[in-house]
């Protein structure tokens, strides 16, 4: 498993099946980064939630996964990006059980709990970019 530092993969999300594909890919990256089985599952679940939001709210977008490396340990970074409607009220979106569609909510608080770092950049009418990281 040498030279994984620059390993990076960009996945398009435009069909429902892409959600599980992205999540499965994230699981492989998490394994490469050295996460335990539980950690791998958590990363994959977070990606599933993020990809689902893209599919549900923006119709299409992309998820980029890469392995991070710092002095003490490795980690994983996921960037979920779309040019969808954006989120008008981030405060509300970060509350549990908030939803604007008929499904079960954005799941963003859950994603935040599954990962170590969470960043969101969104503008109504322009799009949303969510960056999350988790360290081994």
């Amino acid at each position, binding site marked *: 498993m040498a030279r994984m530092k620059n390993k990076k993969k960009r996945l398009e999300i435009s069909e*429902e*099946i892409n*959600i*599980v*594909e992205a*999540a*499965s890919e994230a*699981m492989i990256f998490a*394994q490469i980064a*050295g996460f*335990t*089985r*539980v*950690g*791998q*599952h*958590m990363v*994959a*679940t*977070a990606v*599933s*939630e993020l990809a*689902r939001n893209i599919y549900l709210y923006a119709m299409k977008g992309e998820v980029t996964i890469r392995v991070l490396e710092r002095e003490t340990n490795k980690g994983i970074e996921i960037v979920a990006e779309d040019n969808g409607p954006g989120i008008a009220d981030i405060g509300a979106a970060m509350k*549990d*059980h908030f939803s604007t569609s008929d*499904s*079960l*909510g954005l*799941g963003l*608080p*859950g994603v935040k*709990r*599954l990962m170590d770092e969470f960043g969101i950049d969104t503008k109504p009418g322009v799009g949303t970019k969510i960056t999350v990281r988790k360290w081994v």
Partner: protein
Amino acid sequence: MEEEITLSKVGMHVTRDCLVVPIQVELHDELVTQIQEDILRRVKGERLKGVVIDLSGVAILDSVLARGVFDTAQMTSLLGARTVITGLSAGVVASLIDLDFEPGNVPIALTLDEGLQTLEPYVKPKEEPEEAEEPEKEIDQDEKDETDEDEELEGYGKDEE
């Protein structure tokens, strides 16, 4: 991997009036809907009293997929059957907790066998071969010990990797 995921049919079988649904592929929305329909149709059509949905082959269960599976369990109760969900891995459980998932009152068991046991008041009891004489066990003690040890080591390796 792609081929495996697009499999829409999940094998199901009936044992002791109970529908056993072992899911050995990663789930996606359409597949959950398909499985849900299959289960409800069979429970109703065959007047089954119990269902075990075994998720031991599932690594990724996000909030929507989990809702689909747990809703299926509750739907079967409206058809007079009881559903147990089994085989949730530690990673799936940890994720569901972080997602603040509410499992409702769906019974959970660790393994498929335990799931069937949970359903025993509702399904046919396990048929014990009454007169079956217990054959003399001739297990080479050394060989047995060796196997156990190997399994244990393998288990550790997986988590540490």
